[in-house]
């Protein structure tokens, strides 16, 4: 029973700290650092889904996070190649 509270509150803390870190963390003017910081709220949300026993949602979310990070990094590298002002 205590385990569930530990998962939930750790997840909530990760979502809040990670979101604030993504907005005003050190060195977030670099888009690659900002993308790396967005992984923290993703893992916090996974912990909240685990608390509610949403197995399929958890599985899908872990896979979707990987795929979306792939696409985001490809877009960042391409824009950097073109020399776009982001």
């Amino acid at each position: 029973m205590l385990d569930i509270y530990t998962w939930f509150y750790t997840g909530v803390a990760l979502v809040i700290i990670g979101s604030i870190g993504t907005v005003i963390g050190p060195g977030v003017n670099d888009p690659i650092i900002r993308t790396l910081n967005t992984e923290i709220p993703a893992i916090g949300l996974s912990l909240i889904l685990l608390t509610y026993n949403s197995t399929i949602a958890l599985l899908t979310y872990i896979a979707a996070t990987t795929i979306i990070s792939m696409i985001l990094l490809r877009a960042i590298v391409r824009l950097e190649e073109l020399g776009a002002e982001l």
Partner: protein
Amino acid sequence: MSSILDLITITNVSAVVLVIGTLGVIALPKPIDKVIMLSILQGGLIGTIVAAKYLDVAMAAAIFDPIATVIFLIGIIKIDEIRKKKEKEKAGEEGILA
């Protein structure tokens, strides 16, 4: 009888690992250090899922997390190459002008 050893469970240890990973990812400035701390964070997530006894989900997470790490490393190396090339081009242009 409860002792301090009762606090050492998979859940508690994973929560500590998650918090350490979070602070590391936010505080360290270099991208390569961030990727290393992200691996610690993902280890904490897998530990938590194992503590919930969802071993099938833990298997999927264990497959997908290294893929994300490899993608991040490829992206960081590529973006570093592009920035170095651009700096060199800029220096070359300034040399011609001077």
